[in-house]
């Protein structure tokens, strides 16, 4: 990584601290989706924005070393398959597709409740965060290519 890539030292130092807090907040929103406003979609967008913050502050080359982009794409694609797998497990245990076959366990207003809803929230969160970040990354690659830099 060259020293000149990305933004100034102040932005990089602030980002280094704040990115983890943003990711933690996104995970909180996803895990508490069945108790408070939010859910898989909103939390996934928060995590994607944290990755985007990292990309804007440190530059495109750093993010390519930091994470493996095709691995993120694999997470995104397998989340869609996992969603279908939960639906098929609903057929196996409860008789209808996407049935909430775990809804009897846990107590209301606690983190451990609501059956398959938190599981589906986590799957959707993984899918949305990785998908949005991969699309933005691909768009930025496309932009350099078009500019002929």
């Amino acid at each position, binding site marked *: 990584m060259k020293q000149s890539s990305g933004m100034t030292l102040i932005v990089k130092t602030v980002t280094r601290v704040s990115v983890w807090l943003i990711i933690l907040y996104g995970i909180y929103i996803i895990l508490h989706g069945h108790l408070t406003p939010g859910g898989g979609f909103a939390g996934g967008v928060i995590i994607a924005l944290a990755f985007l913050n990292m990309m804007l502050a440190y530059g495109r080359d750093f993010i390519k070393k930091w994470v493996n982009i095709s691995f993120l794409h694999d997470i995104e694609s397998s989340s869609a398959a996992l969603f279908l797998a939960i639906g098929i497990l609903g057929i196996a245990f409860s008789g209808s597709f996407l049935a909430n076959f775990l809804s009897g366990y846990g107590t209301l207003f606690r983190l451990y409740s609501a*059956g398959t809803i938190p599981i589906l929230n986590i799957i959707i969160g993984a899918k949305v965060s990785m998908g949005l970040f991969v699309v933005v990354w*691909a768009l930025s*690659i496309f932009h350099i290519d078009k500019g002929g830099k």
Partner: protein
Amino acid sequence: MPVETWLIFVISFMILGSIVALELKDILSSIIAIGIVGLGVSVSFLFLQAPDLAIVQFLFEIFALIILVRAFIKKDYHQEEPSRVNKILVGVTIITLIAVFLLSVNIFKSLPAFGKPLMETSEYYLANGAKDTGSANLVTSIILDYRAYDTLGEVTVLFTAILGALTILRIKSRSKDSVEEQL
């Protein structure tokens, strides 16, 4: 003040923002003025007591703002000449819109009052949602339990859209063959 007054205030602010965005010459200023519209939608969702939607709308407003600024801030952005306005066509369009609006006044009168939907399914969800699914947040219990097929369709749409975007961008970048190994 009732919530309708606040909504009228927010919506007129949004209309003002979009007019400003249309009239400004600088592209960055218009993008920021468009941001007023998305923020106003988010605030009006808050007034209508829908915090789930307000969070998602606010986050996507930030996302769209970043993408628009990244896309348009380049120097090679080519601004198109404004097309000539056909005044007769604009007049005919406005008269047709006013006529359609006047003809549909009876339909508007037959709608239920603002904020009072007469839906039996929503009453069922409010009464039995927490008992049936065990989820304290009723919005989540609807989108992931009662209406989970809808969410499955949404996931499929997102998956297909990302796949299509990646495919098109890879075809474009393969012609230069320097970017191909990055994906």
